[in-house]
């Protein structure tokens, strides 16, 4: 129980022509909300997929709840990719039941509450939802699972401001499971920064700065958004 939720040691991921991750070491403790911040192509998605157990590193060591990523860790991890992977012909309610079949930890009552909070109609087909509504639906499904670790890849990218505000509110409000650890990748820092305990700045597959958001504010007098501009340019 004393294991950190995530532990990475000198993790590398090489592709034939590029190095997506170039020696990433990182420890994430239970109950933290972590902002994984970097531009497109900095390695954020690769890092999340490795933690989710969907990709293997070329080198280095990965531990999630003290275990190598696999069947056991996947039961406790909710990974929400940036791209929408849902079937357009399903209705919102059908999707929730569909996900429930794969992930028995999904709490239907909580899903119903989240659906109301996110202002989604259960009878509407997913194909008919706007981009913002689809992004909100993804959060309904993710937060309704009793997962110990939630990985969100760019949950705010390209959606309308009211949807973003709603998503951020859900992440810090009553729907967040007690003690749940959340890692959120984003390159839009301004709106999200107040919800982070810890921030990790990623540039070209390397961590260039990390720390407690409040400590970095006190030490530098800068917001995370300003630091993003400074350390990642």
């Amino acid at each position, binding site marked *: 129980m004393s294991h950190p939720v995530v532990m990475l040691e000198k993790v590398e991921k090489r592709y034939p022509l590029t190095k997506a991750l170039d020696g990433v070491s990182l420890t994430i403790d239970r109950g933290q909300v972590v902002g994984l911040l970097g531009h497109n192509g900095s390695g954020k998605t690769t890092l999340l997929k490795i933690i989710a157990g969907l990709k293997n590193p070329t080198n280095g060591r990965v531990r999630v709840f003290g275990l190598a990523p696999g069947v056991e860790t996947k039961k406790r991890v909710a990974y929400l990719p940036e791209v929408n992977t849902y079937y357009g012909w399903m209705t919102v309610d059908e999707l929730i039941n569909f996900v429930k079949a794969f992930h028995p930890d999904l709490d239907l009552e909580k899903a119903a509450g989240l659906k109301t909070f996110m202002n989604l109609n259960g009878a509407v087909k997913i194909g008919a939802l706007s981009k913002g509504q689809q992004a909100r639906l993804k959060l309904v499904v993710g937060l309704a699972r009793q997962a110990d670790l939630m990985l969100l890849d760019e949950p705010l990218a390209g959606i309308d401001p009211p949807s973003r505000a709603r998503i951020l509110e859900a992440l*810090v409000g009553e729907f967040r499971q007690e003690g749940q650890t959340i890692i959120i990748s984003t390159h839009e820092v301004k709106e999200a920064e107040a919800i982070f*305990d810890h921030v990790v700045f990623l540039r070209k597959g390397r961590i260039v700065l990390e720390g407690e958001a409040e400590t970095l504010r006190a030490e530098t007098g800068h917001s995370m958004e300003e630091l993003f501009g400074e350390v990642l340019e």
Partner: protein
Amino acid sequence: MRFEIDERQPIYRQIVEALIRQIACGEWPPGGKLPSIREVAAAARVNPNTVARAFQELERTGLAETRRGEGTFVTTDTEAIKACREKTAREIWTDFLRKMRELGFTNEEVRRLAAELKEE
């Protein structure tokens, strides 16, 4: 319940200061229940751990106390609230005077200006 946050400064401190101001001006009355950590977190869209830290700081000032399982309550000690209001007023006044000195105003000139502006 509104919180203006400047993300260049530690957020927990700003929440403490906002709550102290709100208590001092009676927005949260003596003995009354403060909103929960989750409620403040959702309203300000701020991490609940940050809000929890702010509540701890607030308790340390003696203006609020947490009762296990019930929530956080404003102190019933109206003298303490009055003292806090006074202290905040002094801070604002001191800050004001410092700025006026920087502008080269003497105390006499500040008094004259205050009287003049009151007329308007």
